[in-house]
């Protein structure tokens, strides 16, 4: 044996194997499309209905994805429970992400809501959305780090760029159509479907899978 036993690589392989079914991307793509649909709904029906598409997606798709995971993923790659160190890493990332959201709320949104700094020079129209875009990129960067999956970072870039993109599009072209959210959602959704198809081809259900779990 000429290679060192690389435990870190082994752990990464285990994490990657457990997250490569593409379902997560499909869910994210649909959520983004529903955010785009929210903008259309807002223009058609007014403010209270803005969350309807997102709520419908969360109510139906999140449990749906769990069922699909049980039906497609678990029979193919089985089950794993990560060690306390990895769980602690996930927890650290969660804490960091929650802090980021709170920070954004306190520093950016709250002064805006309470109308602090009235009389100060107005911020550019795309500023708040650009900050949210950066927050999204930050969120996905940490997620990418936690899931050991580089493509998650690129999803964050696409998602993050779509937020100021839609605002600039509206300002420059006068259209409220959420062009960039729809494109971003579509790109992520299609990527997820490609990843899922590749996963299904790469990991057929092992012939002895049931027996393996009935030992």
């Amino acid at each position, binding site marked *: 044996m000429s290679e*060192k036993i690389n435990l870190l690589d082994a*752990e990464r*392989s285990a994490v990657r*194997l457990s997250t490569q079914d593409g379902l997560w991307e499909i869910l994210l793509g649909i959520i983004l499309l529903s955010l785009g649909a929210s903008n259309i709904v807002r223009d058609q029906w007014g403010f209270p209905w803005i969350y309807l598409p997102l709520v419908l997606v969360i109510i139906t798709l999140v449990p749906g994805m769990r069922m699909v995971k049980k039906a497609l993923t678990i*029979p193919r790659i*089985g089950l794993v*429970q990560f060690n306390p160190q990895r769980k602690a890493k996930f927890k650290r990332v969660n804490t960091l992400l929650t802090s980021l959201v709170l920070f954004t709320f306190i520093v950016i949104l709250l002064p805006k809501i309470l109308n602090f700094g009235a009389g100060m020079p107005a911020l550019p129209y795309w500023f708040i959305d650009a900050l949210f875009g950066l927050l999204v990129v930050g969120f996905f960067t940490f997620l990418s780090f936690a899931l050991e999956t580089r493509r998650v970072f690129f999803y964050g870039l696409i998602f993050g760029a779509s937020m100021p993109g839609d605002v600039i599009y509206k300002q420059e072209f006068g259209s409220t159509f959420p062009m960039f959210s729809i494109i971003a959602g579509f790109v992520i959704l299609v990527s997820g479907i490609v990843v899922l198809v590749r996963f299904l081809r790469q990991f057929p259900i092992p012939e002895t899978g049931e027996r*393996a*779990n009935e*030992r």
Partner: protein
Amino acid sequence: MNAKQDHPDKHPLAELDRLIHAPARLMVLTYLYVVESADYIFLMQLTGLTWGNISTHLSKLEDAGYVKIEKKFIEKKSHSMVHLTPKGRQAFMEYKTSMQQVLGELPD
């Protein structure tokens, strides 16, 4: 293995735990070392071993007290989850240290 006590000058390779040294079992133990527990299918996919192979190797490791196989109900379905015992964890670390020592002493 008490070879060192019997023959203090023995080469470190002679002290290697042969139960762990088999490539298939070493792979299984490496993955079990980095996760809390995994079922047969997960180990099969990670190692590329067949069900028969993995079952045989896990039985040997279980007999040695290195792994424990427990039936768990996860989302109403029974899964045989395998995890490393403290004895297995210690044996694996000792094996890793010995291998690193042996390989580290080799000339380039």
